[in-house]
């Protein structure tokens, strides 16, 4: 009797086990948490979220007999590290498959995600210390690094024999940029005329611009928020100083052009560095991506008009990065044949995908940077749109991406 009871119990357990392997009729959810400054930088936050949504659209993953759909959950960090930490805690509690972040608060938040083996993808901030595969195995980045941008500037500017004044703001972005520039120009100190830090809240940078001018600078490199770059241009040009101005990827932000809408000629000639939108195979992959983006979310209107009087749109280049990461995450899950976070995390080091720009995108065990330094190009503004410069080897090979509608 006892044997029969035990045998019956075993049978029940076995049947239950068989039942659990059956495919459920409704797809399960894989959460990708997007933590970005939606309230303080709507353009950036929305671009990141849209990139993830586009990358995960129509994705139906089959893993271990179960179907999964991706659900995007957004958290607003408002550029606040403490809010970012709280957001990451909530994402962990939701068993998120990954967290896509602009980079805010990652220094404090990565450990929380690491304990749950959840990957974090930084898709905007290029700060040098943020990514370290040995110390932060769950942190990845697809965005131009400050290191790469600074070294490309050194490579580009030093041969021009310019005396460069660094103007950096007091935000984390500006401070990280200043450190990267100091490192990149350390072997050519004579190329640096001045190092000036400016408050990001300042509405008049005339004193700092005067300081830079008196240092004998023949070029300005302004590394800061779009508003800082705008204020620097306003101060320089309104004082009649027609000095060449250079800037990091934040110069692409529509905010800069909006602030200079009254004096579009002041923006003309500004050269900024960013990650290239096209690979060697040409503009077709990016154009297809841009078309898909605009069909789904509409064109990103800058809010200014070109020299020809047509509305200017911003190419969704910063949506490429979250889009590519989402594809990498899916490839990692498929490669791992599991949604178990530790396995997915390990697989992220082994997979590659074709990125939105046609380039191969991927990480590896010793490098979690998805944008190599070589991919940083330079573009020059003219009439509120920009095109790659011709006096840099990489940039000269790149096509112009249409920005007028």
């Amino acid at each position, binding site marked *: 009797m006892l*044997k029969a009871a035990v045998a019956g119990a075993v049978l029940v357990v076995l049947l239950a086990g068989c039942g659990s392997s059956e495919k459920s009729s409704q797809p399960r959810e894989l959460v990708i948490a997007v933590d970005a400054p939606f309230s303080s930088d709507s353009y950036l936050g929305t671009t990141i979220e849209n990139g993830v949504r586009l990358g995960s659209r129509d994705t139906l993953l089959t893993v271990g007999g179960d179907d999964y759909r991706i659900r995007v959950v957004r958290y607003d960090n408002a550029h606040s590290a403490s809010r970012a930490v709280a957001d990451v805690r909530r994402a962990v509690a939701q068993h998120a498959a990954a967290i896509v972040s602009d980079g805010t608060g990652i220094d404090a938040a990565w450990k929380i995600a690491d304990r749950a083996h959840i990957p974090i993808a930084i898709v905007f901030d290029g700060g040098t210390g943020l990514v370290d595969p040995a110390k932060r195995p769950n942190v990845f980045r697809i965005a131009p690094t400050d290191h790469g941008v600074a070294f490309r500037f050194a490579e580009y500017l030093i041969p021009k024999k310019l005396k460069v004044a660094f103007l950096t703001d007091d935000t984390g972005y500006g401070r990280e940029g200043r450190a990267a520039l100091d490192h990149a120009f350390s072997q050519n100190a004579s190329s640096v005329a001045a190092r000036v830090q400016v408050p990001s809240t300042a509405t008049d940078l005339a004193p700092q611009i005067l300081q830079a001018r008196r240092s004998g600078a023949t070029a300005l490199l302004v590394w800061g928020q779009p508003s800082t770059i705008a204020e620097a241009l306003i101060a320089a040009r309104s004082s009649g100083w027609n000095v060449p101005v250079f800037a990091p990827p934040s110069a692409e932000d529509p905010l800069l052009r909006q602030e200079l809408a009254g004096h579009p000629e002041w923006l003309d000639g500004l050269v900024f560095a960013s990650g290239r939108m096209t*690979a060697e195979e040409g503009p077709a992959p990016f154009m297809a991506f841009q078309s898909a983006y605009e069909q789904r979310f509409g064109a990103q209107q800058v809010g200014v008009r070109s020299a020809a009087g047509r509305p200017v749109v911003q190419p969704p280049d910063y949506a490429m990065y979250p889009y590519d990461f989402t594809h990498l995450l899916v490839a990692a899950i498929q490669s791992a044949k599991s949604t178990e976070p530790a396995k997915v995390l390990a697989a992220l080091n082994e997979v*590659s995908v*074709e990125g939105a720009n046609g*380039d*191969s995108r991927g990480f590896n*065990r*010793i*490098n979690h940077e998805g944008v190599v330094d070589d991919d940083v190009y330079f573009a020059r503004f003219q009439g509120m749109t920009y095109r790659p410069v011709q006096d840099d*080897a990489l940039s000269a090979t790149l096509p112009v991406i249409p920005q007028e509608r």
Partner: protein
Amino acid sequence: MGRPRGLVALLAGGLLLFPSAAAADTITLLSPSARTSTPPPLVGRRIAGLTPQETRFPGRLRNVERIAVGIDRSGTPVGVVVTQRLTISRPGDFTFLVPAPATKVVAASGSQAEPGLRDRGIVWQGFASGRRVLAATVTLAPAAAAALPLRVSVERRADAVAVRLENVTRGRFTVATGSVAPDAVRGFLGRLRREGTTAVVPSELALQGRATGQAVIGVTAPLRVQGTIAVPGRSPVAVSAVLRAGQPSTRTFVLRGRALPTLDLRAEPLGPLEILPGPHDPIPSLASLQRVLGSVALAWQYHHFLDSPDPSGSSAASYVYRTVEGSPVAAVAGRSSGGGDTLTIVLVAVLGAVALVGGAILWAHL
């Protein structure tokens, strides 16, 4: 009747001398860049279902490798570290993977890019604005030592120590057999010597002749070995030998005394021009030609201990064997990522067996 018989005999004699005149068979020669299925080049971990890495580079790549082999006092390899330098000569994007069972990789001096590391090998990606050197120092898993071309063994014999150097390169190729006209062979060899062995296109490998079938041939890659064998208190013994290519595949150096020597040897596979018959050498038969081409092909493989994404680009590898103290391989093996899985499998198996036995005992007592 006498005349026709004489004519047949004459024709038969002519056919023997000039087989191509009698038959229009096409004999396909072994490609001098053919590869056997065994390493080198080394392969990385195979991962089923993974999308292949994109391979893209501008122009031709030049590949130079230095394979540093640490050997213990008995001559057994204890660590293999390769420094590979790939040089791009034209502007353009590059992205590729060099397969390797690598446990560690760092940029070597002079590298103008940073290498990446995956289970499958070393990854490179970037943009070359012109000439660009991609150099990596790669520590390999211990199993890579099985693909080395030279085996060194040191053993004590009475009042002497014998150092034995053996060329262990072995390759097997399936080749066409038969005969071809000497002029065709001469022309083919002349073209190889002039234009190089990597520029051969398939149509150039087709010679007219008389085919008799196929055969499997075994070949070795000739090695030039140079260096010193040193024993404390005595002048080093110079080593300069070619192993195979008409020479023995093994050389033994006997040193008096009981002290184990320190070795510093460099082994290099011979280049194609050193293996191919010279313009004044006798024209080889088809069988000999196929064998020579097999040696060239195998030597070319050993010039790619780590592969180059450009199979037609120039490549040169040198293997440096040096006596080292300690065993770096043991340290590397201790960190092997596969160990954890193996331990887990063994533990699960043991615990499962214990549970089964326990269940059976419990069942018997119910």
